[in-house]
């Protein structure tokens, strides 16, 4: 095992720590999937993982490449149709935690995964929202994982794919939402949480070895820092080894034809 922790590993481990045994978690592909399964294989063995393909209480041995790999169904308690997944389970209010990422985020944790540029004549056509618009509104809380950078953390989104805290303040409540929305943005450099009142993202914890200036420089807007910024605890040996093991199994599995 390498002694150097990569920023992506730190991000995944910090995200995993935000989860508990009581979570019913709607998992996206990539960092969220790694974080959720890391939590399951370390401190939260009873966490319930749900993928939008319909697999409920799944326990994959390797990380899926798609949200519907066979591994997910084979290890699930049961599997429902996609309409049922979105109607009874997501809209039904059964999911405590939704995980989102995106191409771009703004200071109120709104996300863009649709287009860069004008919608009708895009500079870059991104994949689109998928489940995100309703994950963002129907889950009890939202965790976001994204690597930082000024092209990703932007002053103004060209398109709001899924709402975080909208224009800030009580915007969610004004739209009738009863769910919390994003409660943390876990990046490769730091952890941000919305200010209790304004809902503006505020850095509350910086990962070990990362300079405060580097965090500020990686944001496209003037980033707020909490009065007392913590240092994210370094990954434990167990966290690192479990994460690297599952990723090694995953690489091996996906390369086999």
């Amino acid at each position, binding site marked *: 095992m390498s002694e150097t922790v990569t920023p992506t590993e730190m991000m995944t481990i910090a995200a995993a720590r935000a989860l508990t045994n009581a979570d019913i978690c709607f998992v996206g*592909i*990539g960092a969220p999937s790694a974080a959720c399964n890391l939590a399951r294989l370390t401190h939260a063995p009873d966490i319930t993982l749900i993928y*939008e*393909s*319909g*697999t409920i209480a799944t326990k994959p041995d390797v990380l*899926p*490449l*798609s*949200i*519907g*790999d*066979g591994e*997910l*169904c*084979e290890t699930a308690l049961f*599997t429902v*149709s*996609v*309409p049922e*997944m*979105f*109607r009874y389970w*997501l*809209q039904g209010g059964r999911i405590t935690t939704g995980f989102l990422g995106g191409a771009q985020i703004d200071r109120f944790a*709104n996300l863009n995964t*649709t287009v860069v540029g004008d*919608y*009708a004549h*895009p500079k*870059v*056509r991104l*994949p*689109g*929202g*998928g*489940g*995100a*618009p*309703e994950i*963002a*509104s*129907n889950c009890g809380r939202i965790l976001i994982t994204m690597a930082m950078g000024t092209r990703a953390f932007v002053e103004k989104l060209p*398109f*709001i*794919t*899924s*709402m975080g805290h*909208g224009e800030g303040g009580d*915007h*969610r409540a004004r*739209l*009738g*939402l009863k769910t919390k929305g994003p409660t943390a943005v876990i990046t490769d450099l730091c952890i941000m949480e919305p200010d209790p009142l304004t809902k503006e993202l505020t850095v509350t914890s910086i990962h070990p070895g990362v300079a405060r200036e580097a965090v500020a420089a990686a944001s496209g807007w003037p980033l707020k820092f909490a009065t007392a910024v913590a240092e994210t605890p370094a990954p434990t040996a167990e966290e690192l080894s479990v994460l690297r093991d599952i990723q090694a199994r995953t690489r091996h*599995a*996906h*390369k*086999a*034809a």
Partner: protein
Amino acid sequence: MAELMPLAAAIAANVHDGDTVAYEGFTHLIPFAAAHETIRQGRRELTLIRMTPDIIYDQMIGAGCARKLKFSWGGNPGVGSLHRMRDAVENGWPQALELEEHSHAAMANAYEAGAANLPFAMLRGYIGADLPKVNPMIRTVTCPFTAEVLAAVPAIRPDVAVIHAQRADRKGNVLVEGIVGVQKEAVLAAKRSVVTVEEIVEELQPPSPNSVVLPHWTITAIAHVPGGAYPSYAFGHYQRNNAFYIAWDKIARERQSFLAWLQDNVLSGRPEDFARYARRQAAAE
């Protein structure tokens, strides 16, 4: 009433230029063999509906079959962009592609409403999102009891639904198992349906009384195409070829490499070619 026939005949009889079609399968049981046959038959001006266009629609769009795409997530799952779809949207190659974009929840509900023969679907959705500003097919409906305003989208009612399933019996009853996606809804919402299957059996014998079954009178044509979901997978038969999904990124990135792949693997191919993927997996088990 389902008729058992070769895939070429099933596609020729049911998929016509200008049709609105849904080749469904949510990461699992994606009907690739049927899509390749559609490309070979040179269908044009199709309106393609699919929650996740995936590489199956990347291939059909790149081959020039489509004029419009209705979808909710257009990526190569876990890999990246759909380059052929992006080339059509951004550069109009090989022809312009009109987009009608929804969320997954809206698409899933729209299929469900189609199967239920309702004119529209409602959902608590799109709250605070920009998509309703650019898609006039996202409207609202007001609850007559609570006055809550909900999102509304038109029901999906394709001319044809095309799916792949594990097995059919001699009468044409079909079993779908595992990640069942929106396939049942797509077939029930459609005017016609084509189903490719891994195997034909004497008796269907679903493992549970509550298994997902499509009875023969909901299906127009069934074709026996083992391996027909490759490089996606068929639960109980063969696994997803994730390596091919990763390789597709390179194949589809440039027009020339895509066209060469299309010539070698689709235009020069036959439905029977897919059987080798089913056999290889069976041998490995």
